C-alpha cells in the first residue's frame, strides 16, 4: 500500500475538512470556552459528528459502524486538531470504541448505539499520577459477590463529568508493575460511591479527578477477560496515542499555517517579516519537521490497520515525533507573531495551550521516545 491517502480516504478528507471547518472552527471553540459550559463541548456538534458517520469509523459493520481504520480516524482527528474543535471524538469514538470492540455483546449493545447516534460520551479513567504511567496502575478491584468493588483514584479523565460511562483500568490480581492482573471495567455514570470532580484545563477542556470509594460493579461490566485487561488497555492506549498524534499534527499544521500567513501580512522595519531570512529558515525547518511527523503518523496508522508487528514501535515514534513537532510549531508560532501572539485575541496562543494538553494526553514525547529505546533493548 503506497504511503499516501487512497481515493476513498481523500474523499473522506475533503468532507471532514469542509464539515469541521464550517461547523467546528476556532470561533466555535471560543464560544464554548467563553460560555464556560460544564461539558466544554457541544452536544449538538457531537450529534453532527455521528450524522457524518465519524463516530462509527472504528465500529465494525456488523455492529452498525463503518468498519474503517486508524488512517480514517486520523483524517478526522487532524481536522479536529487544526480547528481546535472541542469534541469527545478522540476519547469516545476512537480510544473508547477500540476498547469496546473487545467487549461482549451486552456491553456493546449498551453503548455502541449511543455512540453511533452521537448521544453517548465515554471517559477514560486510566492515569493515576500526574504523568502517564499505565504500567504502574495501582487501583484495586476486589471481588465482592458476583462482581467487583473498585477503590482508588484516577485523574486526567477528559469529559469525565459529562461521560455516560467511564472505562476504568484496575488491578484484580498481581501487584503494581505486573503485566497480568489488570482488568478493564465499564462503569456507568452516577455509580454509587464514585466521586467525580471536574477541573478546567489550560486548553479549556474539562477533565475530572475521579475517586472510587468502593464502587460496586457487576461481572458483566468487565471489558475483555478478568486479569487479562492489559490487552484491552493496550488497544485503548494505542488508539488514543495514534489518535492524539494525528490531532497534534493538525494542531501543529494549523499553527504553522496561520504563522506563515502572518509572516506574509505583518510588516516591520518597512518590509514583510516573512522577507527576513532568519524567519524564512526557521519556518522552512518547521515545514520539514511537520512533513516528517505527518508521514510518521500515517505510517503508524497504516501498520496498525495492516496488523503489522511493527505497529507498536511506530505508534511510539508517531506520538513522540508529533509531540515534539507540534510543540516546535506553537513555540515558533507565538514567537514569530511577536506581541500579538501573547494576546487572547489572536488564535496562535490557543494552539499553544491545546498542544500542551495533547502532548501530555496518552504519554508525552519523552515517555514514547523512552519506549522506543526500550523496544530496541537499550
Amino acid at each position, binding site marked *: 500500500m503506497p504511503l499516501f491517502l487512497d481515493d476513498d480516504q481523500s474523499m473522506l478528507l475533503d468532507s471532514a475538512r469542509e464539515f469541521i471547518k464550517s461547523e467546528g472552527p476556532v470561533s466555535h471553540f471560543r464560544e464554548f470556552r467563553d460560555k464556560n459550559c460544564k461539558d466544554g463541548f457541544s452536544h449538538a456538534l457531537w450529534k453532527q459528528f455521528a450524522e457524518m458517520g465519524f463516530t462509527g469509523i472504528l465500529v465494525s459493520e456488523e455492529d452498525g459502524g463503518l468498519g474503517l481504520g486508524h488512517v480514517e480516524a486520523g483524517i478526522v482527528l487532524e481536522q479536529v486538531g487544526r480547528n481546535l474543535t472541542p469534541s469527545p471524538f478522540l476519547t469516545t469514538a476512537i480510544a473508547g470504541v477500540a476498547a469496546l470492540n473487545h467487549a461482549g455483546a451486552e456491553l456493546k449493545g449498551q453503548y455502541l448505539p449511543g455512540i453511533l447516534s452521537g448521544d453517548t460520551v465515554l471517559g477514560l479513567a486510566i*492515569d493515576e*499520577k*500526574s*504523568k*502517564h504511567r499505565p504500567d504502574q496502575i495501582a487501583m484495586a478491584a476486589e471481588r465482592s459477590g458476583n462482581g467487583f468493588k473498585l477503590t482508588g483514584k484516577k*485523574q*486526567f479523565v477528559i469529559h469525565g463529568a459529562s461521560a455516560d460511562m467511564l472505562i476504568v483500568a484496575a488491578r484484580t490480581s498481581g501487584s503494581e508493575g505486573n503485566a497480568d492482573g489488570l482488568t478493564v471495567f465499564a462503569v456507568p455514570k452516577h455509580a454509587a460511591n464514585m466521586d467525580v470532580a471536574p*477541573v*478546567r*484545563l*489550560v*486548553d*479549556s477542556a474539562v*477533565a475530572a479527578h475521579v475517586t472510587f470509594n468502593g464502587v460496586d460493579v457487576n461481572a458483566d461490566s468487565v471489558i475483555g477477560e478478568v486479569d487479562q485487561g492489559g490487552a484491552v488497555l493496550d488497544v485503548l492506549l494505542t488508539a488514543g496515542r495514534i489518535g492524539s498524534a494525528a490531532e497534534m499534527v493538525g494542531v501543529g499544521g494549523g499553527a504553522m499555517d496561520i504563522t506563515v500567513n502572518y509572516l506574509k501580512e505583518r*510588516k*516591520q*522595519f*518597512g518590509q514583510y517579516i516573512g522577507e*527576513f531570512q*532568519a*524567519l524564512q529558515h526557521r519556518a522552512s525547518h518547521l515545514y520539514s519537521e511537520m512533513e516528517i511527523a505527518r508521514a510518521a503518523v500515517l505510517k503508524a496508522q497504516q501498520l496498525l490497520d495492516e496488523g503489522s508487528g511493527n505497529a507498536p514501535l511506530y505508534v511510539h515514534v508517531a506520538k513522540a515525533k508529533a509531540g515534539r513537532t507540534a*510543540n516546535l510549531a506553537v*513555540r515558533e508560532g*507565538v*514567537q514569530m507573531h*511577536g*506581541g500579538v*501572539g*501573547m*494576546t*487572547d*485575541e489572536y488564535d496562535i*496562543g*490557543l494552539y*499553544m*495551550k491545546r498542544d*500542551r*494538553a495533547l502532548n*501530555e494526553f496518552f504519554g*508525552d*514525547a*519523552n*515517555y514514547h*521516545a*523512552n519506549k522506543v*529505546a526500550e523496544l530496541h533493548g537499550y
Partner: protein
Amino acid sequence: MSDLEQFRTEIRSWLEENCPPEMREPVRGEDDMCWGGRNFEFKNEAQKLWLERCAAKGYTVPDWPKEYGGAGLSAAQAKIFRREMAKLGCRSPLSSFGIWMLGPALLKFGTEEQKIHYLGQIARGEIRWCQGYSEPGSGSDLVSLQTFGEEAYDEECGDHWIVNGQKVWTSYADKADWIFCLVRTDKQDKYRGISFLLFDMESPGVSTKPILLISGNSPFCETFFDDVQVPKDQIVGEVGRGWDVAKYLLGHEREMISGGGLGDGSRSLGAVMTGAIGLNGLGMLDDQLLRAELAQFDVDTLAFRAVSEQFMDEMKAGKGHPAQPNMMKYAGTELNKKRHELIMAAGGSDALEWESEASHGGKKPRDWLRTKANSIEGGTSEVMLNVISKRILELPGG
C-alpha cells in the same frame, strides 16, 4: 576584619533584624511583589513595613547616591548587599520600572532638579511608572513611532506639548501613576525627531485599556492620548534626542529581563523535580529523557549564572562590550522559557489545571505562558541577534 567584611556583618544583622519573616518567603508571581505607587494595596503589614524600613535606609536602591534616595553603596558593597539578601532569602522591598528603567536614565540624562524630584519618589515607592514605547504596527521598530507632541503655549501651563496618539504593551498602565513616553516632536527627522517625555497618567486625555493575554492576565494595556498637555520641563535629555535616552534605557530593561534566566534562587530545577517524578532503582529521576533535559538545563543555568555575575561585575567596573546587554537579554529569556517548558513537562496533567485550588488557580500554566513574552518584550530575540551581529560581530549589511 576588612571594611567589606565589617560591612557584610552589619548588613547581615540589619537584614536579620529588619526583614519580616513573610518577606523571606519566595515570591509567588508578579501579583505577590511590592510595586508601590499612589494606589498600591499592600498584601500585608509585613510588605508595607519592609518597604518603609528599606526606603528609610536607601536600601530600595542601594547603589544610588544618598541625595537621590539611595544608600550610596560602592559597587563592592552593593554586591555584598545583594549576596546577603539572597542568603537570607529576603524579597526585594520594591519592584519598580522606576528603579529598573527610568532611574538609570535620569541618573545619566536628568537635570539636578529632575534627579532630586523623581528619583526620590521612585526610591520611596511613592510613584509607580510605566513605559510608553511600542505602538500598534511598530513592535520592534521604534523609529516608526506615530504618537505626536505639538508645541503649544497657554497661561495655565506655559510652554508645553499637546500629545496625541496611542501606545501598546504599556506594562500596568492601568495601575501606574506616571508614564515615561517616547513622543515624536518633529515629523521630518526620523531619528532626531523623537523626545523622551514624562507625564502624569491622571492628566486629562489619558485613557488605558488592558490587553487580555493567553495567560488569562492583563499586565499590559493599550494607552490612548487625546490632547494631553505636557509641560516643557517634563522632558529627559534634549528635545529630539529621546532616542539616545531610550536606547540607553533599553539596555537596562534587557539586563532586567535577562535576569529571568536565573530562575527562582539557586535550586537545581532537576532537584526540584524529584518530588513530582520520583527516582528509579538507581536513584535517578524516573523519566530518563526528562532527566537528560533537566541535566542539560541545569548546566545551562549554572553557566548562565556565571555569565550574569561576570556581566554585572564588568558593568560596575565599566568593562564589557556596550552591546552585551543584548546578548544577556537573548540568552536569559530563552533560558527562562525553557525552564517553564520543563516545569510543565514535569508537572504533567497536574500542571494543566487552569483554575483549581490545588493548582493555585493555574499558577504553573499561567506562569509558563507569561514567559513566552520574555523573548518579545523589551526587544525580541530576533532583534537582539541582529544587534549582536551588527555591533559585536560587526557583520556587514542589513
